[in-house]
């Protein structure tokens, strides 16, 4: 017979707070927001404790609540007007549709050596450029590129299609490339 798991809310903070905090911060990259989502998760867990059937472990169950909280946050930022305003790199209509806009064409990089990739300054600049991305792009970029999640997993977690995901990754990378070009490679 399958073992049934039980909930022990008194132990939640000691047993799972750090794990869930790491889980959250890797997705939202904001410690205050991560703490808020963590608190909301524990409170939601308390409220719905009577629905816990014991089929999953306590941690898995809390993670599933947390994921829902993160999706809710993602949907909120996704619906904010102006949040996703992006400088277009390609003509979006006319006979040049899809071609590079002249002033956005990639420039030559004078100092793109492998050696510099390890430098701390470079890492800081990259972090600053990622932080400048619209929040939803930054989140998807981090999940795919930094946390190395499978495409399917991200789509499932965020409730988006794989086409949406690749458009977001593309836009994030285009903006990051430009930011790094302006602030690092040609600075």
């Amino acid at each position: 017979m399958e073992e049934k798991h039980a909930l022990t809310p008194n132990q939640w903070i000691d047993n799972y707070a750090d794990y869930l905090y790491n889980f959250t911060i890797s997705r939202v990259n904001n410690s205050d927001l991560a703490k808020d989502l963590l608190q909301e998760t524990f409170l939601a867990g308390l409220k719905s404790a009577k629905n816990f059937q014991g089929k999953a472990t306590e941690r898995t169950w809390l993670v599933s609540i947390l994921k829902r909280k993160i999706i809710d946050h993602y949907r909120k930022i996704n619906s904010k007007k102006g949040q996703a305003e992006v400088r277009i790199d390609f003509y979006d209509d006319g006979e040049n549709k899809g071609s590079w806009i002249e002033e956005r064409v990639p420039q030559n990089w004078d100092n793109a050596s492998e050696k510099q990739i390890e430098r701390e300054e470079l890492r800081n600049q990259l972090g600053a450029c990622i932080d400048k991305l619209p929040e939803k792009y930054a989140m998807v970029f981090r999940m795919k590129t930094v946390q190395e999640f499978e495409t399917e997993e991200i789509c499932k977690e965020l409730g988006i299609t794989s086409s949406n995901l690749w458009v977001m990754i593309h836009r994030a990378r285009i903006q990051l490339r430009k930011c790094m070009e302006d602030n690092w490679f040609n600075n």
Partner: protein
Amino acid sequence: MFRNLKITCDQATTICDKNQYSEASIKDKIRLYIHLILCRICVKYTKQNTTLSNLYKGHAQYCKDVKHCLSAKDREDLKASLEKNKE
């Protein structure tokens, strides 16, 4: 037949980005390579994209090595909040 293989710079760079994660289909790769024969700007983008991908990998490794922990105060606040809501 070849009309289907013709893509814009926007599409080419999207495929190029997808290819950085080894997730571009064979058809997409063929369309990208045909585009690259004709477009020097996207050739430059592709080369620079590989440099950036190496940079992102280094950043990813660094982020994985960093572990975040809640402070003692954060833990106490969370515990207090849970206790309050149990009542």
